[in-house]
């Protein structure tokens, strides 16, 4: 057991920080927000083809770097800190884990190298709970066809590849669910970008009208995909928590810088104890979140690694719930405090706190809000509610 970063992990963090401080500064983030339909393609090219970040989790056998989820979390923390708008999150945290957990080697060989090359943007279309899954899959000739709708898919309109969950008509709960890898130029898909409160991340509505898919496109055994989808979303929640951690830290750092500079009553605003204590509480929540996120990243690493420790794998639900619930509350709290402690300028479009505040709200909801995650934990600890 060693609960500190290695030299290599620290290098990854530092180089990501250097790159993003420029490539995703406030100006760049705002430029990205005004692109309604996509993310800055030049930035994605740099990330994918010069920095190789999407290759990080992909095994060397598929042309990737074969690193673990801890390294990815280190990167994501910096992405969150600089509000990076990018296909990186969905590609690395949703699509890649789902493909790594797939039991279809031909499919893995088809798509993982494309992700590693930095040229493929992929995401997952799946609700948080099996009961919410509406899209349906029916046998059709040699293959299947998909119908129905996914109402909120992160990056759904931008991605080149969608991993689409659907259930057999008449099935219920966690049974009868399958997932297919579907290139977005397949006929029958209507993808509508939604206008979002947080303009740094894209959501889309995906309508499926007789979308043809083949057996070869299945990610896991037909009818039995829910465990994979659930694990994937838990792992993605851990990745998102790492992002949220970075966002929370930046909200605190912005606040520290501003309150040190701003003077009232003949002294810096930072010198008032009421302000100091609120900043100290932000740090308290951030450091607790940091511990939760690091641990959860280690669990995700074991879950995805071929030689993963089975005892640790069993902690995925608890680790994801703990990390995501803490990170969501911490990020929202810090972002809200940052508006308050900036005073009037905190309420302007020009200053950055509102960008963090909106991202915090959106991230809190995405992949399970704190109450949802705690209820998952409660069910493990105490049994079902009713």
């Amino acid at each position, binding site marked *: *057991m060693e609960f500190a970063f290695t030299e290599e992990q620290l290098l990854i963090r530092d180089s990501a920080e250097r790159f993003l401080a420029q490539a995703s500064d406030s100006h760049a983030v705002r430029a990205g927000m005004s692109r309604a339909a996509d993310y800055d393609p030049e930035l994605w090219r740099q990330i994918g083809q010069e920095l190789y970040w999407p290759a990080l989790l992909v095994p060397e056998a598929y042309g990737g770097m074969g690193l673990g989820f801890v390294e990815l979390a280190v990167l994501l923390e910096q992405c969150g800190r600089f509000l990076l708008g990018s296909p990186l999150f969905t590609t690395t945290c949703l699509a890649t884990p789902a493909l790594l957990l797939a039991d279809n080697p031909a499919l893995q060989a088809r798509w993982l190298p494309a992700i590693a090359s930095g040229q493929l943007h992929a995401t997952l279309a799946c609700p948080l709970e099996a009961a919410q899954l509406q899209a349906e899959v029916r046998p059709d000739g040699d293959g299947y066809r998909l119908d129905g709708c996914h109402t909120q898919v992160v990056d759904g309109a931008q991605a080149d590849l969608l991993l689409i969950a659907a259930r057999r008509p008449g099935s219920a709960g966690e049974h009868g669910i399958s997932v297919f890898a579907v290139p977005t130029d397949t006929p029958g898909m209507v993808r509508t970008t939604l206008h979002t409160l947080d303009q740094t991340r894209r959501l889309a509505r995906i309508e499926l009208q007789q979308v043809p898919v083949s057996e070869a496109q299945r990610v896991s055994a037909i009818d039995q995909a829910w465990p994979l989808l659930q694990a994937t979303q838990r792992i993605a929640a851990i990745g998102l928590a790492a992002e949220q951690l970075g966002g929370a830290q930046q909200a605190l750092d912005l606040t520290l810088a501003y309150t040190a500079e701003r003077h009232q009553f003949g002294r810096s605003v930072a010198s008032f104890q009421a302000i100091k204590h609120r900043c100290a509480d932000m740090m308290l929540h951030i450091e*607790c979140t940091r511990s939760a996120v690091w641990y959860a990243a280690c669990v995700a690493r074991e879950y995805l690694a071929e030689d993963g420790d089975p005892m640790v794998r069993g902690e995925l639900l608890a680790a994801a719930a703990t990390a995501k619930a803490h990170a969501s509350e911490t990020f929202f709290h810090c972002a809200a405090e940052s508006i308050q402690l900036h005073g009037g300028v905190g309420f302007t479009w020009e200053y950055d706190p509102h960008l963090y505040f909106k991202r915090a709200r959106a991230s809190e909801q995405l992949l399970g809000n704190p109450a949802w995650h705690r209820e998952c934990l409660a069910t493990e600890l105490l049994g079902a*509610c009713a």
Partner: protein
Amino acid sequence: MKIGFSKSDEAFRQEVAGWLAAHLQGEFAQLRFRGGPGDEHSFPAERKAWERELASGGWVGVGWRAEDGGRGLSISQQVIFHEEYARAGGPGRMGHIGEGLVGPTLAAFGTPEQRQRLLPGILQGQAFWCQGYSEPGAGSDLANVQTRARLDASGERWLISGQKIWTSLAHEADWCFVLARTEPGSVGHQGLSFLLVPMDQANIRVQPIQQLTGTSEFNEVFFDQAETAANNLVGQPGEGWKIAMALLGFERGVSTLGQQMQFHNELEEVLRIARANGAARDPLLRQRLARAWSGLKVLRYNSLRMLSGPQDGSLAREAMIYKLAWSNWHVELGKLAMDVLGDAAEVLDSAPYGLSRLQSLFLFTRADTIYGGSNEIQRNVIAERALGMPREVKGR
């Protein structure tokens, strides 16, 4: 960064569990799950005997360096030891001040002679310690200590006069480490020294203080020309503040693991009651129970971070926030326990004021946010030392 236990770790787990199962028997069986936070007044003599039993198995100072007589266990093995100790219901440790605070302080600042003379008493479960920092006029403002010490004419002993207060377990202690002013006329953290003082002498009077729990774990301690040998000064005269602060840093070391295991047992009891009395079906209590469970995990991960970081009493980010994190967590657990118990929480075990374990927890946790640096002082320290914000204006 890597979590999980190796095969040899698991073998070690068997060894610890086996030893505890074999020894928490007979006269010690009644101590299982006793003496934890809020229950520290129970079975003092029996728990001291248990310390000697533990020592005979080599289980005191498991994280100390081998050169200091400790077991020098790896972090994983220390985690395992504390996990198994809690699982077996090992009683609250009477020796924790010596093992967790005095030992590491002497290892860092003591002379070889002091280490040779004083560490074995701790390791053998023979010598018990108390902490003489706070005074009536020096609480949060600890640097305002007025207790005086001076070398007598022979230069062979220190003579100490003054009053300490809130001194936990002084009535059970063989030794007290005292922060005293050795430079006449000095103010603030200048001119203080760190002295080790034997408690068994006529010139020290210990007066218990009744707490809001009805019991008395802490005391006033009056020093009237109390004596200690010259070689019981740690560091140099005037270095007392530095050493006193470093000692507080060790409070965030491995002893936190043992503390968390006590917390774990308390939480398990609350969960057990919730399952039994139907509270587990209340959606709001479910949220709070899940929050408590994950909050304790986070404390644990925080400790793993602290243990993987520097072990010299210096404070990394995770150590800076640790006191605030656990005191908030624990105080909420105390309240949660009452809310889970509902009506039953109101009725005492016995007259005149016999508290159940959870009632005791509820009341005792109110101290957690006060002692060892109150939550407000923790926030000042975090803001100033970790975040670089301006220092508080001093009134004097």
